[in-house]
């Protein structure tokens, strides 16, 4: 969501946060410390021991303001349009061993398309696209048990967001055509 790395938000019911023990000790997370007994501060301070990650928190706040200003409905629409365009253009690879995982319906998925092309291993595909200046992800996508169950060695995954354009999708398709030429599929 365009913010800095190393920060996120935990959104939870206060009563549940209250019941949870601290995961880290340090400044600000105690209420009172004695020789025999210690009581902890209330949430959120109970979970924010030590020096706060101030710079990232401010950066995240700016990112939230930026996205709120644009409107998440606009963000979603942009993502949806690019995903629909990419799904349509992927049909150029029909009959050449194209596998798209998940619904081919931009209204039912987020701006992420997982796929494989012929017998090109996803990491080979990612390497070739990399030389064309296109960055995709390849591998298990933090879902190795699912990949095992489905019998997929790895998948390639392209994702779109606010900063992507239709020209980026075109570049991706050019890159895929280049990969198909190299692998002669």
């Amino acid at each position: 969501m365009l913010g800095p790395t190393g920060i996120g938000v935990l959104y939870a019911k206060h009563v549940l946060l209250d019941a949870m023990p601290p995961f880290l000790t340090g400044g600000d997370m105690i209420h009172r410390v004695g020789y025999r007994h210690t009581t902890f501060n209330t949430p959120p301070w109970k979970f924010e021991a030590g020096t706060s990650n101030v710079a990232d928190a401010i950066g995240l706040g700016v990112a939230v303001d930026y996205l709120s200003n644009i409107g998440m409905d606009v963000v979603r629409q942009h993502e949806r349009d690019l995903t629909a365009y990419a799904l349509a253009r992927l049909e150029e690879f029909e009959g050449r061993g194209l596998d798209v995982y998940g619904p081919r319906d931009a209204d039912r998925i987020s701006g992420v398309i997982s796929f494989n092309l012929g017998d090109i291993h996803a990491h080979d595909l990612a390497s070739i696209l990399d030389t064309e200046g296109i960055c995709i992800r390849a591998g298990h996508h933090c879902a190795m048990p699912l990949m095992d169950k489905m019998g997929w060695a790895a998948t390639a995954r392209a994702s779109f967001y606010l900063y992507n354009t239709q020209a980026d999708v075109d570049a991706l398709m050019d890159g895929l055509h280049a990969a198909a030429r190299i692998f002669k599929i």
Partner: protein
Amino acid sequence: MDDFYRDFILDHYRNPRNFGHLEHADASAEDVNPLCGDEIRMEIAVGSNGEVTDIRFSGKGCAISQASASMLTESVVGMKLEDVARLSKEVVLENVGIGISPTRMKCAMLGLRVLKSAAIGEIAGWPDEER
């Protein structure tokens, strides 16, 4: 990187040499590359003079890992185990040529690592890994 994916690499990827298993392997080893999910197993038969008389590899993964392993098996038949154990990565680089990015080097070297592990294990008398 397109330089890397030349015809002979794709040929080794799609028609791997010495692929499969030996009836009687004297030494074997296997390993995975967790980054890509590449898997390679090497099985070797050793002659009376301590030389590699036959070799098979098996596994699955990207073109870089599979083609590198395939070519490696063609390079080491007749070689003494001691020399296999001392192989440097140059043997792989000479086989596959230039163009491997640093992030993919682990894929290229997986077969070599497994083969050396099998050779070193045999010299040291380690028990073979179960298939």
